[in-house]
Every structure is written in structure tokens, then in C-alpha cells.
């Protein structure tokens, strides 16, 4: 995992943004920005290069699932890895996120270990697909 990668954390609760930011910092990531919903995140994603998106689902304005779909529909952003961190634990929601192309799904409340594990898995899988494509 590249520790210099740029990460955008999207959650309407500032406490949760800070928690995630701190956890990511503990893992070694320093380059972290925040947005409080999809509407705020979208122009940020458009304006600069991010390597990873962490988003909540349920947010006023633009919810995370819509942000995910917008990312996947955008030519430049469609391969951006997206991790959903949300209290929405209904089966059909997880299915919807998976179908929309989410890379990982964490249900709140979660532990630091869960976040680390999901990050490892997401990037291991991305590297594996990249290696496969290269060979």
C-alpha cells in the first residue's frame, strides 16, 4: 500500500470523519481530506487526484451510494477504489453497493482492526488485478 496516497473521507458527522482520519493516520496515511456529503465531495474529486475514497451512506444532500454511482459513471474516476463505512446494514443495501461497484463495505460501529483488514484486502485485490492485466 502506498502510504502517500491521497484519501477523501466523506461523512456528515465530523466526529466520524475525525475517527476515520485518525485511524488512517495510525496506519500511516497522512494525505487525507474530508467532505461532509456527496455534494461537497464531488467537486473535490473533480478538481484533484484522489487515490482512495471512504464514504458514509446516509448523508443529507447526496448520499454515499449516489456518490459511488457517480464515481463509477465518470470516465476519469471510474477506477477509484471506494470503501463504504456506514450504519446501513440491510442486506439489500449491501447488495446495491456491491452491484454499484464498491470495493469494500464496513458496518458501523467498527474496530480499527476491521478498517486495517479491509484496506489490506482492497489493495491486495487491486494489485492482483493490475498484475493479471499486465501479464
Amino acid at each position, binding site marked *: 500500500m502506498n502510504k502517500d496516497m491521497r484519501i477523501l473521507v466523506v*461523512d456528515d458527522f465530523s466526529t466520524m470523519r475525525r475517527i476515520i482520519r485518525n485511524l488512517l493516520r495510525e496506519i500511516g496515511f497522512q494525505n487525507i481530506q474530508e467532505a461532509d456529503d456527496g455534494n461537497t465531495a464531488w467537486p473535490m474529486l473533480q478538481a484533484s487526484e484522489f487515490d482512495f475514497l471512504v464514504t458514509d451512506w446516509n448523508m443529507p444532500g447526496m448520499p454515499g451510494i449516489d456518490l459511488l454511482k457517480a464515481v463509477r459513471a465518470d470516465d476519469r474516476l471510474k477506477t477509484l477504489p471506494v470503501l463504504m463505512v456506514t*450504519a446501513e446494514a440491510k442486506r439489500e443495501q449491501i447488495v446495491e453497493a456491491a452491484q454499484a461497484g464498491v470495493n469494500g463495505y464496513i458496518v458501523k*460501529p467498527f474496530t480499527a482492526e476491521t478498517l486495517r483488514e479491509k484496506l489490506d484486502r482492497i489493495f491486495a485485490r487491486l494489485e492482483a488485478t493490475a498484475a493479471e492485466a499486465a501479464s
Partner: protein
Amino acid sequence: MSAAGAGSGTAPGMAGGSAAEIARQRLAKARLLVSSLEAGRESEANALAREVAGMRDLGEELGRITRELHDALAELRVDPRISELAANEIPDAREKLSWVLTLTEQAAHTVINAVEEGLPLASRLAAHDTADEPLRADAQRLHQLLSDILMAQSFQDLTGQAIRRVIEVSGELEKQLALLLHRSGARAGEPPAAKDVAPGAEKMRGQDEVDDLLSGLGF
């Protein structure tokens, strides 16, 4: 409401029998209907079916429902509890919930501030040249405990979402109640005796205001 009077006034023939009598007659007709169906007497069955269906007069039913609705609305109008709820208590409860939201958020941020300062300290201690093994272990444990405290602050997000939802629902309830009161003729905007309690019930915004008030009272 004139519709109620008209409804009962125009009720035809059936109005004469008591409810129990009508029910008894319907049951008897229904039994006849079943036996004529079983015997395959189509036209007789059809006629009986129409009779059974017609025994409860629709106009009478409508009239009864209208009367009940009218009475219920009239009761609403005279019950000051309802308009008190719509105009004062629900908005007040919503405000209290918002306050809980704000206060828990502030508390969570205060904790996170402390943890953010503590985590690097614990890391530094654990990695320090002069630290012996027990000290290093303690520092690592401290780091772990601080992480646990950090994670526990996610309660604010989860409870906050639930509280927001309750605020939303009670707002909807408030709106519907106000609408109901409006339709029943009462004015929700003018709750009985609401303004009388306002000055005494005014809430202080912190210790400074309390102190100011007390010193104003000669304490």
C-alpha cells in the same frame, strides 16, 4: 354538520329494525343464499345476494361515520392538550433532542482532541531509546487504550443518526397535528395559556447567565 343529519334522516326502510334484528335477518338470508347456491338455483341466489348486500344501508353508514368524525373533531377542539402538544411540547422536545445532539458532539470532539494528542505521545514513548521493555509494553498498551477510546466516540454518529430521525418524525407529527387542529377549527398557533409560562420557563444558557441572574437577584 348538516350531512350527518341528512344521512340519518334519509335512511330508508331498514332504519326501523334494531342492529341485532338486522344482523339476525342478514344471517337468515345468507343461509338461504348458501342453500340456493348449493342447489344450483342461480337466479334465486342472485336475488338473495343482492338482498343481503342491501340490508345495511350505505347512506346510514356514511351518516354514522360522519357523525363520529364530527364528534371526534369537536372533542379535539375542546381538548387543550392537543394544541398544547402541537404548539409547545413537540417543538420543545425537538429542541431538547437537538441539544443532546450538539452536546454529545462537543463531548466527542473534546475526547478526540485529547486522544489525538495522546496517541503520538504513546507512540513516542514506546519507541524511545531509553525505554526498557516493561515501559515499552506499557506505552503500547496505553496506545491501544487510546485507540479504543477513539473508536468508542463513534457512538455519536450512530446515536446522532437515530436522534435526527426522531426529530424528523416528531416534526412530521407536529405538522399533521397542526393540520388536524386547523381543520377542526382550532388555531394551533394560539395555544391556551402558552405564553403565560414563558418568562418563568426561560432557560439559562450556561453558568455565566445563571450567575448573572443570581447577582441580579442580590445573591
